[in-house]
């Protein structure tokens, strides 16, 4: 990450930390690519298998083994580069040499001064634009299990066991510029990045399973002065933890500077349980990686035709999907329903319901509520849902009745909404019958009615509850509400 000495991006007043401090954050996000096989060999890229079964001479770094690049990994990395507005360029691989038991060859094949993707940006939904310095390909390491000592901790363990199933899984490391000014922005950046990665099919991007990992470079300074010394925070395992870790680290650095201390450049470990970071190692004893061009691999030089083919096949990105739903429903693109629908990939389904003549707003609500567990592509014909939205919109069903019918349609994988409603005896109640019920309910709970008439809106709940109970949910809430308001005279 190259820090510019003076930032052109300055925190707004609300973004400033107490005492006139500003935090400067850059993120390094590693994502595992959703390929069938590894980056340099044909072993399966699969999570959760028995130890050491997805192994081959390349994965294990056996003497004589040679890497051969996975074309699909390059394509997925190109998709990421295009989605992040990067320049896709002629690139080579380098060896990063260091000894560690999870690194079979004692070097990682990575990219160094010539990455595949360079100089892009990510526009956050809130409006900030975060620079992306590079997004390069590299291989993952194996996994260690530490035995003995404090449970699962490396320190004090008696020995460790190595599983190389993950070794050689393709990763893209996405390095942001130090353009992030608040922990909220950092969380937003990672959320949006995750949504993009899922949308373009590059990665399942699950932080809990480790298929997306995030390191944060954090420093503090006062605007107008050069950036402070930065610390790299590792072991951040959720978006929530990322925000906490950054806030903690900025606070820690400010406290040190305020009390006359100096920040050392170092790598720090986030302890989520304790809610603090602690020193992992200082830069002085960091390894000298002796990068040099990987002689076993040749140059990758994506042709303009290849790049355009990948670009043409890119699905709409989350921002475009949110805009589509906004246009359809009139909702704010930052509204919960739109964000949820896009995150789950349900936007196309909502659109299909609307295209089938359904009410777009009700479609959005049904889909985000009823299909919470059903995944991105429920097997219910969009036309069936469309018919239901119209019954509710036209007050032929109450919201409660519609919900019941929807549940039945979902459970059966489809169905005629009108027929199901009829079978359940759901028919719109005569307005005069509802009026009678309202009057009965007022008579039964005069206290609540008095409060409601005095302007205490939530007192209406007791009255409405009585009516719903009496009508067994058949009364349309909107009709009830309208009658009550007219009785109150407001």
């Amino acid at each position: 990450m190259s820090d510019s000495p003076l930032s052109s991006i300055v925190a707004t007043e609300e973004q400033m930390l107490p005492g006139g401090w500003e935090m400067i954050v850059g993120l390094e996000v590693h994502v595992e690519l959703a390929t069938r096989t590894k980056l340099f060999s044909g072993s399966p890229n699969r999570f959760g298998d028995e130890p050491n079964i997805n192994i081959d001479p390349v994965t294990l770094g056996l003497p004589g083994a040679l890497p051969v690049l996975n074309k699909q990994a390059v394509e997925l990395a190109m998709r990421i580069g295009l989605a992040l507005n990067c320049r896709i360029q002629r690139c080579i691989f380098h060896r990063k040499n260091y000894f560690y038991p999870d690194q079979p060859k004692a070097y990682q094949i990575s990219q160094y001064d010539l990455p595949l993707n360079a100089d892009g940006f990510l526009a956050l939904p809130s409006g900030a634009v975060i620079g992306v310095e590079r997004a390069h390909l590299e291989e993952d390491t194996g996994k260690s299990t530490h035995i003995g000592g404090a449970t699962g901790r490396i320190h004090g363990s008696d020995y460790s066991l190595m599983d190389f199933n993950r070794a050689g899984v393709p990763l893209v490391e996405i390095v942001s510029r130090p353009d992030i000014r608040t922990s909220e922005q950092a969380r937003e950046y990672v959320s949006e990045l995750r949504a993009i990665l899922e949308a373009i099919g590059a990665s399942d991007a699950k932080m809990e399973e480790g298929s997306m990992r995030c390191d944060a470079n954090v420093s503090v300074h006062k605007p107008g002065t050069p950036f402070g010394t930065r610390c790299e925070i590792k072991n951040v395992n959720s978006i929530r933890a990322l925000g906490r870790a950054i806030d903690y680290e900025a606070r820690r650095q400010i406290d040190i500077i305020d009390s006359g201390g100096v920040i050392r450049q170092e790598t720090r470990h986030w302890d989520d349980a304790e809610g603090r970071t602690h020193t992992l190692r200082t830069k002085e004893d960091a390894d000298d990686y002796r990068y040099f061009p990987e002689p076993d691999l040749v140059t990758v030089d994506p042709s303009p035709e290849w790049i355009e083919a990948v670009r043409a096949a890119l699905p709409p990105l989350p921002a475009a999907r949110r805009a589509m739903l906004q246009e359809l429903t009139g909702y704010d693109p930052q509204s919960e329903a739109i964000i949820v629908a896009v995150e789950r990939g349900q936007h196309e389904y909502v659109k299909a319901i609307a295209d089938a003549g359904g009410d777009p707003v009700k479609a959005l609500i049904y889909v985000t509520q009823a299909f919470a567990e059903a995944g991105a592509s429920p097997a219910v014909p969009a036309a069936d849902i469309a018919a239901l939205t119209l019954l509710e919109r036209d007050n032929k069903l109450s919201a409660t009745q519609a919900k019941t019918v929807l549940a039945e349609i979902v459970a059966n994988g489809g169905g005629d909404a009108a027929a199901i409603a009829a079978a359940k005896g759901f028919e719109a109640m005569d307005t005069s019958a509802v009026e009678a019920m309202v009057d009965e309910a007022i008579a039964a709970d005069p206290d609540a009615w008095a409060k409601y008439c005095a302007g205490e809106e939530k007192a209406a709940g007791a009255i409405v509850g009585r009516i719903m109970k009496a009508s067994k949910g058949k009364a349309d809430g909107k009709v009830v509400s309208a009658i009550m308001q007219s009785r109150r005279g407001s």
Partner: protein
Amino acid sequence: MTQSGSPISAADVAKVAHLARLDIDDAQVENFTEQLAKVMGHFGDIDALDLTGIEPMTQPYPLVNVMREDVELPTLDTDEVLASAPAAEERRFRVPPIVGTEG
């Protein structure tokens, strides 16, 4: 920039031995320092060359875009592989406690 002909010190040798994870004793440090200094001294000959504008050559034969399809290939037999490991346990390679941290 350091010149190729510059002498190599005992401290350099000790640092390099650590980077390469080769335990060497003081006598070996001295021995290697002497031998490497002699060899590196000979290598000063290329300092005389004008190399401006010359592209580094990392590979002899200029191939581009050599890639494989994303297709599964046979894997190795875990038992056979673990049988030649210095130590194994629970289908995994066993190593002494890890100190220090990864790259």
